[in-house]
């Protein structure tokens, strides 16, 4: 699965609704990416800023941080699916996680 569980985009012509959906998905990915950047920055980067380069420890930490974040994303997605995500989100869950 891709980050949003949309591995295979259905083929087809361009229509406005599809463009709209793609933009929405892009927004979502940007949002997730920004959260990832912020979380791993907090976890891995010392706030003293004695130098401008990433040191070895920070670099390794970032790699692991991204991995774990993806794993957490997967676990949360699975958990939401098994719970049906409550009444309100149920329909949306179907479509967003249908391909995971």
């Amino acid at each position: 699965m891709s980050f949003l569980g949309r591995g295979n985009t259905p083929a087809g012509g361009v229509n406005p609704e599809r463009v709209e959906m793609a933009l929405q998905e892009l927004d979502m990915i940007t949002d997730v990416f920004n959260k990832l950047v912020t979380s791993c920055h907090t976890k891995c980067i010392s706030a003293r800023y004695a130098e401008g380069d990433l040191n070895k420890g920070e670099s390794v930490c970032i790699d692991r941080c991204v991995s774990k974040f993806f794993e957490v994303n997967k676990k949360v997605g699975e958990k939401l699916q098994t719970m049906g995500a409550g009444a309100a989100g149920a329909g949306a869950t179907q479509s967003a996680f249908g391909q995971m």
Partner: protein
Amino acid sequence: IEKKQMQDFLRMYSNLVERCFNSCCNDFTSKALSSKEEQCVLNCTDKFLKHSERVGARFAEQNADAMGAGSK
């Protein structure tokens, strides 16, 4: 409206991932989730949804009370 619901759901989902990741993952000596971290994430998700539900129920009650008071 439907589009908005979808967006709200996705935002809630990414907030949940962020929150549970930040609370549960503090050890970066390994790239795999430990079983302790995994359990923490599951509980965090579970609890957050129950929390949101309860807040939602109280929110609706308060709003209804306020409406009632306003129309008196």
